[in-house]
């Protein structure tokens, strides 16, 4: 089974990219299964089902979807195996720019869009920096100059990644992405494999349901801000 993690901020075009690439892979006779990880709700499963792709949706509720992802990804692989799929794609909305679902040995794709501004690549953490492929969407609505600057900034943030310009509406770039996915390593299980980057370890009272503000309510791993000195 080839396992591919596709992560990126909300609404950048992850589903559009997977659907267009699935079409190219399907034309080559590859069978695909998709798992969508999200927080509270998602309609993506409907989109995949409509395209005839086997899909499961996992809603993380109150925990970070990337944490939820690690706890479930090996089960996803077993599920995809039982369907006889050749590829498993895990789509996850990288909500906190701090977590990253990328696993060593699985192809890691990060999706970002040209609309998010030329400084975004350096603000996104390991989700982009640890990816093998960075797909940049929505180039159809910005200038050539912005596309070049944006791609350059992605390159600066992750010089090892293959950078793919992807148009989620027309599927431009799907050939290249399908090429990368077909070349992903073949895995039997994810058991024992490691995340490319550890997820934040903070466990504070707010992680487990505290809602009240104030020093007395802050327990566990709490980090306080430092402010510039006020000049007299």
């Amino acid at each position: 089974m080839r396992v591919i993690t596709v992560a990126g901020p909300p609404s950048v075009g992850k589903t559009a990219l997977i659907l267009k690439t699935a079409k190219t892979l399907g034309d080559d006779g590859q069978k695909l299964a998709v798992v969508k990880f999200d927080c509270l709700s998602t309609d993506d499963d409907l989109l995949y089902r409509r395209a005839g792709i086997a899909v499961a949706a996992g809603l993380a509720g109150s925990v970070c979807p990337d944490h939820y992802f690690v706890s479930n990804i090996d089960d996803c692989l077993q599920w995809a195996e039982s369907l006889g799929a050749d590829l498993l794609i895990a789509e996850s909305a990288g909500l906190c720019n701090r977590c990253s679902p990328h696993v060593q040995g699985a192809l890691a794709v990060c999706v970002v869009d040209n609309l998010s501004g030329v400084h975004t690549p350096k603000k996104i953490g390991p989700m982009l920096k640890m990816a093998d492929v960075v797909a940049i969407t929505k180039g159809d609505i910005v200038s050539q100059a912005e596309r070049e600057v944006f791609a350059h900034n992605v390159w600066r943030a992750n010089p090892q990644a293959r950078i793919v310009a992807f148009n989620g509406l027309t599927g431009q770039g799907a050939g290249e992405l399908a090429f990368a996915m077909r070349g992903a390593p073949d895995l039997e299980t994810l058991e024992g494999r490691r995340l490319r980057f550890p997820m934040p370890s903070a466990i504070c009272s707010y992680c487990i349901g505290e809602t009240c503000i104030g020093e007395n309510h802050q327990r566990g791993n709490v980090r306080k801000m430092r402010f510039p000195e006020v000049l007299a």
Partner: protein
Amino acid sequence: MSAHLLALKLDEAQRLNPAFAALIGPTPKPDLSLADWLASLDGGDLDRLKFSRIELEAHLLALIAEAEGFRTPVTRLRELRILGGRDKTGGAENLDLVLRPGAIVSVVGPTGSGKSRFLGDIECLAQGDTPSGRRILIDGEIPDPARRWAASGKLVAQLSQNMNFVVDLTVGDFIEMHAECRAVDAPEQVAAEVIACANRLAGEKFSANISLTQLSGGQSRALMIADVALLSSSPIVLIDEIENAGINRRQALDLLVASDKIVLMSTHDPILALHAQKRIVIAAGAVAQVIETSATERAHLAALEHYDRLMSDLRETLRHGARLETLPPQFSPFG
């Protein structure tokens, strides 16, 4: 290779690639070797840098190794060859077209005939794997599959009607930023040239201090064209149905040709079409004809441009709040 890179001193590495300096931040000991510096990092440092030690090392080495690569300025291209595929009914498309730097080609055809597909095939360097079955050769060769994709992004720049500047920066700051990405020697000076050039193309002038998002449609297009001509590394420019009100079309094309680009534009504007040396006619998904612009056709350009100027004068009149009670005599349908 990595051993000698690891022996580099931090300040040497920082000079090679500004991204290296930006990533590691200020260093108290600039003459520490990269290897020693990596060994000195503790968990807190790695947390701040958001990398594990192994990933950080690989990342920094890649930044240094590729610093040279991205400084190579322009991707050179001798010829682009387009080999026919099939039309919408599966019939063979009779096409073998070779284009060289400086070529301007217009692409015409009814809506839905396949003009965008044609430009799209060039964009992805199609190898019989798109619905048209066309193949694109670069300098006479099939780009090898692993490099095809890397090449396609570098070879082709695109301009289209839907494109806008979205970034919230002034014209000057942004163009300078683009120049810095291209590692040109004097970014400030090059940016000033691009802006001056865009001002020659645009009907209404603008300054470097205005915000990109405040530019009018004509000014944006003028700036995009000047930027592609002077700063884009791509030797092929695809122009999809770009609206041309508010810019000097002849100068825009001359500028692209002078920078040795191959220009393909889908258009129904007679002025642009006659400026092109060749006109590709698309019907039912395939190239039906390749027409060389004749001397007689080109001779009409003067008349067409004359009428075009009259039309833009009328636009200008409206813009200033005047009435159009009388038209210039040339507009009389009987005259």
